[in-house]
C-alpha cells in the first residue's frame, strides 16, 4: 500500500541465538502501520513489546526470513538505507537515562537538531517548542542539570529530544510510564496534535490501557512474541475476553459498560472515551426509561 509507513512480515528475533540461553522474543510478527495512525502495542511484561520497537528502529537485527519495510524501503536487504531513514524516525527507549547524553537539559533536547545542522535562533526556537510541548517550561528547565531531575522529568527530556526534529515516525517505548496523570494525558494529546499538524505516525508500547481510548486507533496485542490480536480502540469491550486471556484488562470505563450490560442495560458505545461514553450511556438510559 502506498501509505504504509511500516510493513512488518514474518518478523522474528532471538536473544543469544545458538546458545543455551537463546530466547525467542518475537515469532512471525506481522502488521502494517499506515501514515497518520497511532497504534499501541500492549501485552504482559516479556511479551516482546520493547524488542519489537527496537527491531523496527533498526537497533536490533531480526532473524533470517524476517521482512521489514520502513517508508517502503526494504531495510533488511538494504542496510545502508538506515542512514537516510534515521532522521525521519524518532525513538524513545524504555529507560530515558539510556538516551540522555548532555549535561544540561536544553543541550540534550538540542542534540539531534545540532546533528542536523540547526543553529542560532532556529535551534533555540525548536528546543523551546519541544520542551514546552512535553510540559517542561523552557525558562525553568533549559539550564537545569540533567542529573538533578526526577524520574518523570527525565522521561520528558528524552521525549522532547525525540520529537524535536519532528520525525515522521515515532517509535515510543512506554512514553507515559512514570508521568503524573496530567502529564500523561498531555503526552497523549501531544501525539494527537503532531498527527494533526503533519501526519506523524506513532507506534507506542504501554502497560496501561486506561488512557488509550480516544487517542490510539488500534491496539496490537502481543503475547509470547506473537501478535494474538489487533483490536480497534472502538471495539475494546468486545475484545474483553481476549485481553483477559493474555493478562490484560479493560479500562475502567469498559468495566462499567460490561457491568451495565450484565444487568440488562446494553450500552451501544463505540468509544470508551469518557465524554463520548457518557453520551452513549445517556441515550441508553433514555430508551430504557420509556
Amino acid at each position: 500500500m502506498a501509505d504504509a509507513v511500516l510493513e512488518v512480515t514474518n518478523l522474528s528475533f532471538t536473544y543469544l541465538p545458538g546458545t543455551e540461553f537463546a530466547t525467542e522474543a518475537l515469532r512471525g510478527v506481522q502488521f502494517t502501520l499506515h501514515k497518520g495512525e497511532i497504534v499501541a502495542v500492549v501485552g504482559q511484561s516479556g511479551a516482546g513489546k520493547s524488542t519489537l520497537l527496537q527491531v523496527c528502529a533498526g537497533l536490533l537485527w531480526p532473524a533470517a526470513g524476517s521482512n521489514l519495510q520502513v517508508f517502503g524501503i526494504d531495510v533488511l536487504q538494504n542496510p545502508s538505507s538506515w542512514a537516510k531513514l534515521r532522521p525521519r524516525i524518532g525513538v524513545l527507549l524504555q529507560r530515558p537515562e539510556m538516551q540522555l547524553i548532555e549535561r544540561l537539559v536544553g543541550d540534550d533536547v538540542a542534540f539531534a537538531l545540532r546533528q542536523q545542522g540547526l543553529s542560532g535562533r532556529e535551534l533555540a526556537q525548536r528546543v523551546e517548542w519541544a520542551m514546552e510541548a512535553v510540559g517542561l517550561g523552557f525558562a525553568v528547565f533549559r539550564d537545569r542539570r540533567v542529573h538533578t531531575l526526577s524520574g518523570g522529568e527525565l522521561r520528558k527530556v528524552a521525549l522532547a529530544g525525540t520529537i524535536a526534529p519532528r520525525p515522521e515516525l515515532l517509535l515510543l517505548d512506554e512514553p507515559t510510564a512514570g508521568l503524573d496523570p496530567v502529564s500523561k494525558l498531555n503526552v497523549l494529546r501531544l501525539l494527537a496534535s503532531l498527527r494533526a499538524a503533519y501526519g506523524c505516525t506513532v507506534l507506542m508500547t504501554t502497560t496501561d490501557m486506561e488512557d488509550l481510548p480516544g487517542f490510539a486507533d488500534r491496539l496490537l496485542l502481543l503475547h509470547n512474541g506473537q501478535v494474538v490480536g489487533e483490536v480497534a480502540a472502538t471495539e475494546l469491550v468486545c475484545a474483553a475476553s481476549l485481553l483477559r486471556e493474555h493478562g490484560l484488562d479493560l479500562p475502567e470505563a469498559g468495566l462499567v459498560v460490561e457491568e451495565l450490560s450484565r444487568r440488562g442495560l446494553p450500552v451501544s458505545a463505540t468509544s470508551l472515551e469518557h465524554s463520548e461514553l457518557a453520551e452513549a450511556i445517556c441515550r441508553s438510559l433514555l430508551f430504557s426509561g420509556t
Partner: protein
Amino acid sequence: MSDVSFQYPGGPLVLRSISLRIQRGEFVAIVGRNGSGKSTLCRLMNGLLLPSSGTVLVEGVDTRLPGTELFVRATVAMVFQIPDNQIVATVVEEDVAFGPENLGLSLPELRERVRAALEAVGLWEKRSWPPHFLSEAEKHRLVLAGALALRPRYLVLDETTAMLDQSGRNQVFNIIREVHKQGTAVVLVTHDMREAREAERVIALGAGTVAYDGPPSELFAAAELPEQLGLLPPPATRLARELHRRISAIPPHLLWPQELAEAIWSAIDGRRRS
C-alpha cells in the same frame, strides 16, 4: 517530620518546611506532579537523605544522629522503582537475607525470616534461582521480600509498580494489602490514582509543600485541586463527572467502577418510577 526543608547541591529547593506525622499501621499514598519532591520525601524518611533544615524523627530517633542508620533503615524499609538497582546477591534467598543479616540475628531466626518473606511474595519455590532469571514482576516481588525480611514497622514504596504490567501490579498490590493488614504501615508513592484511592490517607505534594492531606474521596471530590497538582481523579470518577453533568442523579465523586455502574442502574430505576 517537623519543619523539614531539602535542597540538592546545585539544585532548587525541593521541599519547604514540611511537617507531617505518619502513624504506625497507616496506609498512606503520596502523590503529586513530576518533580514535586515525592522521592525526596521518601528518602528523608529512612535517612538516605538528611534534611537541609528541620528534623526527621523515626520512632523518636533523629535520622541525623550518627550511629542510628541501622535502626532507622530496619524500621523504615524502602523499595525503589527499578528492582535491578537493589538486587545485590546472586541467589534469591541470599538476596532476601542481605538486609536482616546486618541486624545480628541468630541463624535460625534469619532462616525463618527469609522463608516467611519469600512465602509472602510467592517466591519460596525459586529460592535457589539466580535473580536475573526471574521475570520483571518476580524481581519486584523479590526486592519486596528483601524489605519484608527486615520486619519493618514502615514500608516505603517509591513508584514500585510503575513499570509493571497489569497482572504484575495486581500481584504486588495484593502483597502490599496483606502486609498492611498485618500491621505494617505502608507509604506508597504513586502516579496511579487507582492505587491512591485504596489508601486511608493521601498526601499530595505541590510547590514543595503539603497541598492536601486527607482521605482520597475528598481530594478527588474537589473540583479544581487535583488538576492544579498534576493529578486527575481515578478513571471511574472522571466518567462519573461526565455523567453527572448530564444526569444529576449520578453523583460526581464515585471512586470505583462498580459503584458507578450501581449508580447508573439506580438512575434507571428512578426514571422508571417517575
